[in-house]
């Protein structure tokens, strides 16, 4: 079996052993539910453990612990943000939401579900590199707008939005602002406490933490309705048994990400992009050159199809993903590539490389070598543009 080169970290990451070590005691030694302060001792210990994990996450975000809700992941966090704000503000203020065309599915499909519930949703376009036009945003916000939801960085092409400027516009126009930071939490350095952001989704599984654990930052005073009913957990905003080992793992995983690591990933990314663009002919970089998260590269290899590329790579032990329609369960081409003014052909041959802690610079050589071989082989089979093949 060949050595595995895993470059699909945006989908999910390998757990860091140190995270597992931190979580273990809460499966075997201290496994009680977090009780009230009048409960039994194991319950009190659980409560303190949860409070500790929450305050460590809050500390990293530079916000108050009471502003951090723990959830089952970024999907739940974004659902809660959009639908929770609507629950309290829909009748009171209006039924208009603003988001972008290239959001990830938790926001995109929550917004579409709300359209079916009678909300009016504006899906803002982005430019060819994935950047939102702030003028368009400003024009889209009306008196009825209750929430603007814009991702911090894109899941496929890695383009980073200026959430500070976006938030400023939202607040000037008197609307709340939610940010999906699933792909930037701990990967980009920013002081959330000082940012004009009211709600922010973040997740553990993208930073070598456990799957099924996420967070939603809710700035103090933000109107958010409860839609998961049950007990009084999470400041009575999200019912359900607290995932204490998950919370501990989340805090540990977040602490393990360092700025040195992010710089290292950025240098691997830069080398990967530079080599693929220069050594494989007929390629296009998707996303912005500089306004880009350190762990993402996305390139279209023209005249070939993505599922064929990923399968050939898989046989060589390289795991990546593609925006090709053939790869998706719905047989739809990537809405992100189409959203940046790309066409079907550009999505058809697009490959996303997403990096994580366990990737190395030498893997760039393995990947570039394999890409050259696979692409030239598939182009030999392709009926398109014979004359330009090399």
């Amino acid at each position, binding site marked *: 079996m060949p050595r595995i080169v895993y470059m699909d970290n945006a989908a999910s990451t390998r757990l860091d052993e140190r995270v597992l070590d931190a979580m273990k005691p809460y499966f075997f030694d201290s496994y009680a539910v977090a009780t009230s302060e009048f409960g039994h001792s194991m319950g009190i210990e659980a409560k303190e453990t949860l409070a500790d994990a929450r305050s460590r996450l809050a500390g990293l975000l530079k916000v108050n612990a009471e502003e951090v809700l723990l959830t089952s992941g970024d999907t739940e966090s974004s659902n809660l943000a959009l639908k929770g704000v609507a629950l309290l503000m829909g009748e009171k203020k209006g039924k208009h939401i603003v988001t972008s065309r290239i959001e990830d599915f938790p926001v995109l499909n929550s917004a579409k579900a709300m359209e079916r519930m009678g909300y009016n949703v504006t899906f803002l376009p982005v430019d060819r590199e994935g950047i939102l036009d702030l003028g368009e945003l400003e024009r889209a916000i009306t008196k009825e707008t209750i929430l603007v939801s814009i991702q911090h960085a894109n899941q496929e092409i890695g383009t980073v939005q200026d959430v500070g400027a976006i938030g400023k516009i939202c607040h000037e126009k008197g609307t709340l602002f939610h940010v999906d930071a699933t792909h930037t939490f701990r990967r980009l350095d920013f002081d959330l406490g000082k940012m004009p952001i009211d709600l922010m989704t973040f997740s553990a599984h993208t930073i070598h933490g456990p799957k099924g654990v996420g967070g939603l930052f809710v700035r103090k005073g933000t109107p958010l309705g409860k839609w998961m009913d049950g007990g009084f957990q999470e400041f009575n905003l999200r019912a359900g048994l607290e995932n204490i080992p998950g919370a501990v793992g989340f805090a540990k995983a977040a602490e393990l990400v360092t700025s040195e690591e992010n710089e290292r990933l950025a240098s691997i990314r830069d080398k990967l992009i530079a080599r693929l663009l220069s050594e494989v002919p007929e390629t296009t970089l998707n996303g912005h050159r500089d306004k880009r998260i350190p762990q993402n590269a996305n390139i279209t290899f023209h005249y070939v199809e993505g599922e064929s590329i990923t399968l050939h790579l898989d046989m060589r032990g390289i795991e990546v993903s593609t925006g090709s*329609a053939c790869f998706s369960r719905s047989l739809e081409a990537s809405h992100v590539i189409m959203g940046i003014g790309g066409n079907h052909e550009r999505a058809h041959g697009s490959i996303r490389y997403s990096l994580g802690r366990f990737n190395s610079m030498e893997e760039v050589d393995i990947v570039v070598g394999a890409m050259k071989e696979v692409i030239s082989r598939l182009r030999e089979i392709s009926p398109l543009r014979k004359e330009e093949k090399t």
Partner: protein
Amino acid sequence: MKFPYGEKVLENFKNPKNVGKIEDADGKAIVGSPACGDMVAVYLKIDPKDHRITDIKFESYGCASNIATGSIITELAKGKTIDEAKQISWKDASDALGGLPKIKAHCSVLAVEGLREAITNYEEKHGLVTEKRPTTEEEVKRRLKNVMNPLTGLDVIRGNLITSVKVEEGTVTIWVDLPENHIFAANIQEEIKERIETLWDVKKVELHFNPSTA
């Protein structure tokens, strides 16, 4: 390792047989899938005496199932007469590959369509079509539904790339809503001509590109 396809599919994907182009093909066709944007080209060499397929090649701009089916279908068709080859079904191809995922049916059925279209192309070029109906605009449009625009993943009719079609005294005139220097204009033009020129009563095909969309 666990791959999404069976061994035979993987083998035909990894080392596809009969790949390439036949420059002086007796019959050829390029077909595309509106569902996912895959394309397949099939080229035939046919013995005029007994209409037997002596050589067959294919090209694919498509996913693994598409490539594997192209490979197997060319293997199945080689040596058969055109009447026998026309009978080869998607099921025959799928069976020969040990089964294909259902969701991939449309990408694999494409190779079968490609083979049939290439045979039709041969029959028309060699006067083997017995039923001679005059060519109409509808028939031209029906045929153009098999011409793909790789940029949209749609055929040129559904993608509104054909603005108008006129059939007059053996000349078919087609207006295409693309600039002549468009990246796939040459591909699309070649394909349109191949599909229409073979019609028995068509003497000339004229294409007009739209300079204003440049």
